[in-house]
């Protein structure tokens, strides 16, 4: 039995925005797979909720005319993984979503909730950040677009204004065309776990597949929010596809990450794993892109 005072059911995005303004004390609930945990723990006892879960217009993936991939915020992990557009253009995002929890959670959990929850371990967040995704927020004054790196303000804090909901996540064509990526979720067991560290890498290779034109890397659980390690990205741009390049990439990544020791893992262990993940994810991304090793 959950200690919930009242639930307001939004019928449309406008309705949700109106409820946001009328009930400023209320919290948005989508799939509830993060929120209900907090309510059960007593953190939000007696809360008011605005449910957006029935707003079907927020579900599904589509391609805009300019090639932008538009992911509705209520799209579930399972739907994301199975989606044709995702499989064709950013399969790594579908694979990352498929690493979440177990089948039940992948059916109820949404990509909007995964990002708005503001945690560093969120399995889709590092891939979205590694693809320079744009967060679309809808409020009383219409839509606002924020790059995902700016959307994350700090642990459990995102740039969501009191009258807004997150309506979609966008990936621009220049961010995904020609890129191949790979995500590794490092966890203590094969399912139903939160990442000890996650790493998402993608690369764009030269025409002859021998040189790295661009590489991007983002970690989960390397800091309070998902973290791009730009030293790694800079280090390999223009370098040949080789073992040395992979090593330079890992060394660059380790310059930027700043994991903490907690009871869940020591800093030394996290650093070791993060270095190894950079190597494996870059190697696998290059292989997926048809890279020719020297």
């Amino acid at each position: 039995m959950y200690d919930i005072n009242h639930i307001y059911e939004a019928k449309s995005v406008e309705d949700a925005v109106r409820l946001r303004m009328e009930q400023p004390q209320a919290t948005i609930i989508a799939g509830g797979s993060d929120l209900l945990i907090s309510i059960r723990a007593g953190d939000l006892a007696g809360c008011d909720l605005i449910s957006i879960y029935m707003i079907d217009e927020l579900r599904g993936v589509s391609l805009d005319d300019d090639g932008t991939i538009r992911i509705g915020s209520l799209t579930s992990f399972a739907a994301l993984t199975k989606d044709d557009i995702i499989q064709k253009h950013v399969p790594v995002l579908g694979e990352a979503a498929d690493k979440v929890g177990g089948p039940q959670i992948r059916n109820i959990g949404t990509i909007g909730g995964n990002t708005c929850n503001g945690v560093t371990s969120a399995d889709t967040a590092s891939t979205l950040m590694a693809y320079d995704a744009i967060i679309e927020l809808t409020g009383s004054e219409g839509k606002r677009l924020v790059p995902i790196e700016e959307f994350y303000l700090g642990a459990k804090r995102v740039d969501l204004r009191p009258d807004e909901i997150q309506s979609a996540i966008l990936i621009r064509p220049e961010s995904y065309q020609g890129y191949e990526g790979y995500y590794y979720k490092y966890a203590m067991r094969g399912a139903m776990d939160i990442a000890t560290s996650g790493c998402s890498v993608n690369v764009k290779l030269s025409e002859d597949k021998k040189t790295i034109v661009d590489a991007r890397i983002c970690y989960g659980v390397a800091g309070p929010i998902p973290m791009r390690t730009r030293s790694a990205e800079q280090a390999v741009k223009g370098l040949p596809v080789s073992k040395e390049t992979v090593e330079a990439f890992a060394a660059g990544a380790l310059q930027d990450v700043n994991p903490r020791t907690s009871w869940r893992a020591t800093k030394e262990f996290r650093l070791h794993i993060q270095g190894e993940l950079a190597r494996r994810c870059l190697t696998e991304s290059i292989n997926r892109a048809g890279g020719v090793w020297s």
Partner: protein
Amino acid sequence: MEVGKCLKRVDAFDKVTGRAKYTDDMCPKHAYVTRILHSTIAHGRVLSIDTSEAEKIEGVVKVLTCFDVPDIPFPTAGHPWTTVPAHQDVADRKLLNEHVRHYGDEVAAVVAEDYVAADRAIRALKVEYEEYPFVIDPIEAAKEGAPVIHPERQDNNILAHSDIRIGNYQEAIKEPGLIKVEGWYYTPTVQHAHIENHICYAYQEQGGRMTVVTSTQIPHIVRRVVAQALGWSWGKVRIIKPYVGGGFGNKQDALYEPLCAWLSLQVGGHPVKLDVSREETFVNNRVRHAMPCHIISWVRPDGTFAARKFELWSDQGAYASHGHSVAGKALGSYPQIYPCDNIEADAWTVYTNKPTAGAMRAYGMPQATFHNECHVEEIVTKLNLDPVEFRRKNSMPVGYYDDFSKNELYHDSFNDCLDKAIELIDYDRKFELYKNQTGPVRRGIGTSLFWYNTAVWPISIETSSCRMIMNQDGSIQLMTGETEIGQGCDTVFAQMAADTVGLKVEDVHVVTNQDTDVTPYGAGAYASRQTYVGGFAIKQTGELLKEKILGHAHTLTRMPVDILDIVEGNIVRKTDNRVLMSLGELATKILYDFELSEHMAAESTYSVKSNAYSFGVSIAEVEVDIPLCKVELLNIVNVHDCGILINPPLAEAQVHGGMSMGIGFGLYEELLVDKKTGRVLNDNLLDYKLCTTMDHPDLMVDFAENPEPTSPFGTKALGEPPACSPAPAIRNAILHATGVAINSLPINPHKLFAAFTEAGLFETL
């Protein structure tokens, strides 16, 4: 014959369709609910609890604190009672405790109309504590000057110590040419994590008697403990046990039934439900004893033992529960599996300010098996011997006899099991193939033996009762004191009863719900005892019933009894196999006959005065990704000699479950306690890394069916044994793959990182 057949479980249909009723399904809707307030210090005293705000909350019925409970310390362990005071379980806790002995100890309870009210009331309670220093390491806790956890006991935290002395250790080590092998081995605190958390509800009826409906493994024992805790006479308490969603030993303790009964009394006997959360299951139920063990072996170059020394520390946590019985069992196992003429072995069970340890599947043996099998592997490595040959040569020989339990190794069980396991997993080829690997990803294969007792004789009584009631249609109702908790005993009992009386198994109706008002006495589900012990009572009672039936058959058919038999529910004349009448005809006639009328039933108690060795082996094959500090379990096989299988698929399922637990113990699970506060850090299934189906290979199982001569059905322990040997087999496989010996469980990536770093393995890649 029904015994030995692959029969469907008697409860399969009800469980699959959701008709099987568990405790919560039976609880009346108007029952009050309960929440418990847990201490936020590890050790100290409750000075005061301000309940005034909590009592004002709408829906709160009553708030009760440690200052309200009866001043009656009681024991919780699920052991049969003994009339010998020195052997009685330690009574060291009250219903709620003013003296707080671990972080999360129970200090107050709220009874309310619903959980929202109860939770709000819990948050509104204000507690003032006096804090004492605390200790969470058993070896530290046993030292002079450690914080005393039970000052009422004059034992400085050492709940008990026991020892074994064989030959003369000090003299034996003087033999020239001996090689000394020494190590410390550590097994962590883990929890049972059964699916159905503990739950019970209590109410008064029938002139003040107290009924508790509960998810328990031990209804008759719980009745006694509830009565003791309330200071009542035992007959006034009634325990009902519906279907149970697993227990693994955690429910072999009176967990909350005494408190729930007392809470109901405080609200006029109204039904009160106590439904424990997963967090409470981890912190306030029972856990497996963590056990560090120090072993020294003096070995001759040919790999035979000259002398051995064991020092075992058992982490009891805050309250005695099963106490030293667990370490005692572990200690007793060391000299038996690898016999040696000179042994010095000591075990200490020590209180710490941690969750209470109690019974958990295999009761100290997974710990002892890990200690000993790691150590043996160290000997093998140091002396460059073959691990399997060493085990064949040094393990308990055929004909071995233990003077205390009177157990004997009648068959060549270890070799039988090893031979099968080796073939199933293709051991010999892989063992050679995986020698001297280099590179970041390596494979290995490792072995472990174990032995186990069946039931607890001669430490405790092994008494089991059975009642069979004949229906007019020739079927019977079967009641035993033994408890179905998911393991399948109702099904094997039905098979045994069918064969003894001469019925088809579908004509045996097992009364699965137990009610201490009507269920005959039995000790319950623990010690892998029920199939063995229950078998004696069923056989004896079935024969009594059969005698009665044949007596009536003689009257009705005028044939001499000795040429009559009961076969598949018919009275048969043995001389020509003619069916003379069906049991249904006989039973109807006998019940309704003006002259002969009798309601046919039989009841008897059997007190078993024997025990039986059960044996087995695990072989595990792993792949170790060294840079990622990850182990993948590729294959694992368990082969058991548990005597004759009563129902092969049920036996196999039992082994699967035990192996899974062993895998968790080996690679994943550990309950972590914060050194600064004493708080359990991972009291939930996210942070407590129970392994998932994704972490299991297909589990291979086989049996060496050597009949157990003492059992009427040739059977012996299988419930707990499968959990004993997987972890050391996995550990030995990792050693084989990497050359790195890890002596502390679980072997998770954190441990591997530290061990590989220390061994300098990363630099060699």
